[in-house]
């Protein structure tokens, strides 16, 4: 409503105030002005270096391609590749498949599927592979039937193994 009042006020003012009217720029004039637009006003000399700088651009990346998919038949989510620590045989079909159903954020997917998804709080050193995962945990996972996801501070994290 406020916006409508503002527009109305501006319009009313436009109708009553002295208006400075201009003729629109022509296509030819506009094309001529475009010749002066460039970042070449900046330094064009590459800084001296033994190695040529590497500039990366983001073409062709895919979050889904770089992730593992989890799904329960109705919903799906994704976690970084390497975050899935253990998959029991009975749940193989729920991991790594194509996205099926409605995409949920990781936290919501976990809340809907506590019966077959669980987490393991993972330290930075464990994630980097500097420290091993606790052997008693990995041994326990073999004896249970949940998918185990590595998390750090609530977010799924890749683990180098």
């Amino acid at each position, binding site marked *: 409503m406020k916006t409508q009042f503002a527009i109305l006020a501006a319009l009313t003012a436009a*109708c009553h105030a002295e208006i400075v009217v201009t003729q629109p720029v022509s*296509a030819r004039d506009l094309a001529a002005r475009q010749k002066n637009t460039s970042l070449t*006003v900046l330094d064009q000399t590459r800084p001296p270096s033994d190695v040529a700088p590497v500039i990366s651009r983001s073409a062709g990346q895919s979050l889904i391609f770089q992730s593992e998919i989890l799904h329960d038949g109705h919903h799906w989510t994704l976690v970084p590749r390497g975050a899935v620590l253990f998959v029991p045989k009975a749940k193989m079909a729920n991991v790594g498949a194509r996205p099926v159903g409605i995409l949920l954020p990781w936290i919501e997917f976990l809340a809907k599927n506590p019966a077959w998804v669980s987490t393991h709080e993972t330290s930075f050193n464990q994630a980097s592979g500097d420290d091993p995962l606790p052997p008693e945990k990995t041994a326990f996972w073999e004896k249970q039937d949940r998918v185990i996801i590595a998390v750090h501070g609530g977010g799924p994290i890749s683990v180098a193994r």
Partner: protein
Amino acid sequence: MLRFAITAIALSLPSAFGQGYVNFVRQQQQTSKITWDMPVAPQGTAPAMLTAEAGGALFQLWTVSQQNSKDYLLDQKLVGAYLPKGSIIVRSADSYNGVPRIRVDQPFSVEFTVSNLLTGQNIPLSATTVLAEHHLAPNPDGKTVITAAQAIAGTPFSSGYISKNGVTSVIYPVTSIKAPDPTKARGEEHFVLHALGDGTFSQTQIATAFIKVWPMASGKISGLAPGTLIRTNPPVLTVKLDDLYPRSNTFIRIRSSGPILGNGGAVIAGSMLALDQELPTSRLLTVSDYGNLFDSDGAYVIELLTTTPFGTDVLDSIAFQVNRTLRLNAMIVDCETPEN
């Protein structure tokens, strides 16, 4: 512990990404290659849990369509203890709160702010200089969603190096986006600051920003030929309006004919169209019953005007005459019937 402001990125999201999309913020450590998905709200700030590495950390904001599972990289930043910091602000005369926007014929400026650049011997290249790039993303149909990743994937339109800390401003007199009719160009202009990587970083972007470019409006009044003499009721007018600027007031005004376009005159009731929205629009209006705006007989001009944050432009104008004085040419004839 790094603290990463998600707010700045979230505010730059194209509005096309709202309901029906799920956002992910992914942090990738450049040295250890650890990847972590940050639990995030749609807007706000959250601490990055992983420690700062010498090689830096890449933060990427992704969104995934719930409808077709297509993912879009919306923005990314490379931060690190030994990397320069950068930010980019694009300014235009339109004070719109969303993504900056401009009309093709209007100037805008770009401010590159760089800090933490070092000088001296034996310092990594990444700490001494940044590369500024300018990418063009034409969008002729105006409907295609251009992601930041798509926009900056190709060869830049222009680029240059910045090796001093502080603000470097570049003024663009008009858009650089080309089109068969330059006045109808539309799209986005993206600006990127890259750290000069030596191959150890998987990504080098430290800052991005962009501005949306909209075409100039055009309009045509039909139903009244130039030089028409109006003697009775004025004709019904059809007004075709194309590419009206998202924030604009468009109206038709009648004024006495004169050499100066502009002041005075009267606005035709029902011709006013006020816009305050995200996208340009096109309309077809019908205008009638404006005969009461002629004070007297004489020469008039009908003008189609549009007022935007950049001023008021004449989209079309037609000169015509009004002569509604009823002139009776009569002769009195005394006619007598002879008496017989």
